[in-house]
């Protein structure tokens, strides 16, 4: 019998090593905050964190950055007045800024086995300095590579024992693409449902992309 549920957060996060690339979804909601707290307790260091926003002074991203466990941040957006902005300013955090759509597509490419792609996004900007560009169909385009993760920490509304997931409303955001882009995808779900309870047409993230699930009731 396939059963991806694990008893607690510590079991879900077991085996995350120093230096791992962590994919963290979330955009105003849809962030697995209990798993992030667990990662801080677990203590893996020198992590690369991939997340859309560098966050503010409070919240899961800020707490993880403040823990000193993150050596490099890959994101689309950093506020100067935030923990991420101040760590970067002090030279304590490496920063890679990626346009949000390119971030999503690099994750998708990692999950889909696409080895590289060209996009006009960012091609005529500072972000393209020193990088490979080419004119395609009359338009300047920038070469982008996949962004695979060692671990994705994912938020779900419902999960069954095969790891089929639903995400509530706009909390879907980066969850499905990060789930497909990581070697190991760890899910916290608000609700546990029986296999077959999610209508097949309504599975947002299929269990093939999911490895461990822990129930974190709201």
């Amino acid at each position: 019998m396939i059963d991806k549920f694990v008893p607690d957060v510590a079991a879900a996060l077991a085996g995350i090593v120093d230096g791992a690339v962590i994919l963290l979804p979330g955009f105003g909601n849809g962030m697995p905050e209990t798993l992030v707290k667990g990662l801080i307790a677990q203590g893996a260091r020198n992590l690369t964190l991939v997340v859309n926003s560098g966050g503010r002074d409070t919240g899961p991203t800020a707490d993880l950055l403040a823990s000193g466990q993150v050596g490099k941040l890959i994101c689309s957006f950093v506020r100067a007045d935030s923990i991420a902005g101040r760590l970067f300013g002090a030279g304590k955090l490496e920063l890679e800024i990626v346009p949000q759509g390119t971030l999503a597509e690099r994750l998708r490419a990692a999950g889909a086995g696409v080895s590289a792609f060209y996009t006009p996004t960012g091609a005529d900007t500072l972000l393209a300095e020193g990088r490979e560009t080419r004119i395609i169909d009359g338009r300047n385009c920038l070469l982008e590579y996949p962004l695979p993760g060692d671990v994705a920490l994912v938020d779900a509304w419902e999960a069954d024992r095969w790891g089929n997931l639903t995400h509530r409303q706009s909390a879907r955001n980066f969850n499905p693409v990060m789930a497909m882009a990581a070697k190991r995808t760890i899910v916290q779900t608000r609700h546990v449902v029986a296999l077959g309870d999610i209508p097949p047409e309504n599975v947002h993230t299929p269990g093939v992309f999911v490895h461990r699930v822990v129930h974190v009731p709201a």
Partner: protein
Amino acid sequence: MTFRPLDRSGIAARIAKDIPEGWFVNLGIGIPTGVSDHVPNDREVIFHSENGVIGAGPAPAPDKIDPYLVNAGTQHITLRTGGSFVHHADSFAIARGGHLDLCVLGAFEVAENGDIANWARAPDELVKQVGGAMDLAIGAKRLWVAMEHITKGHGGSRIRKLCSYPLTAKGVVRRVYTDLAVLDVTPRGFLVVDMIPGMTREGLQDRSEAELHWS
């Protein structure tokens, strides 16, 4: 004759007048976010939010807030009947794949060649606020910009011959709505489409670094 510049809501209302029924539209953060408030309910315009919301509706009543439903500015919103959700890669496929009839972005500067600068004021600035702007700027069928004509800080014009700030994208802006005027970006440069009451050609040119055209 004196003139009164539009406030931010006034700029948003002016933009809303020009959005026809049936368009699929993304609104950036800042002045553009307010545009949807000025589109009447009986004109069906579908608003896309970069975090995967198709059919974004107005803010909910305080007792109807759903923490699982926010827009690109992470403000609480509602979903219009017929709306749907997609994940981030599909949401940006909409933006980058040419499926938006219109995107309206805020900006620091727009140049007469259609260049837009809206993410950093200097190459070495600590603030790195790209977000979805570079994707939206290159991908929408048409890009309009909403901004004040003059900077608040040093009073310089945001209507430029060339952008002085780091670019978001080259040659993509079709139209600019400011607190003073509406300007089309044409092969000859900025063409004035509309001015606020009381504004003169000389007054508008004085407030623009780029040369303005009138016909």
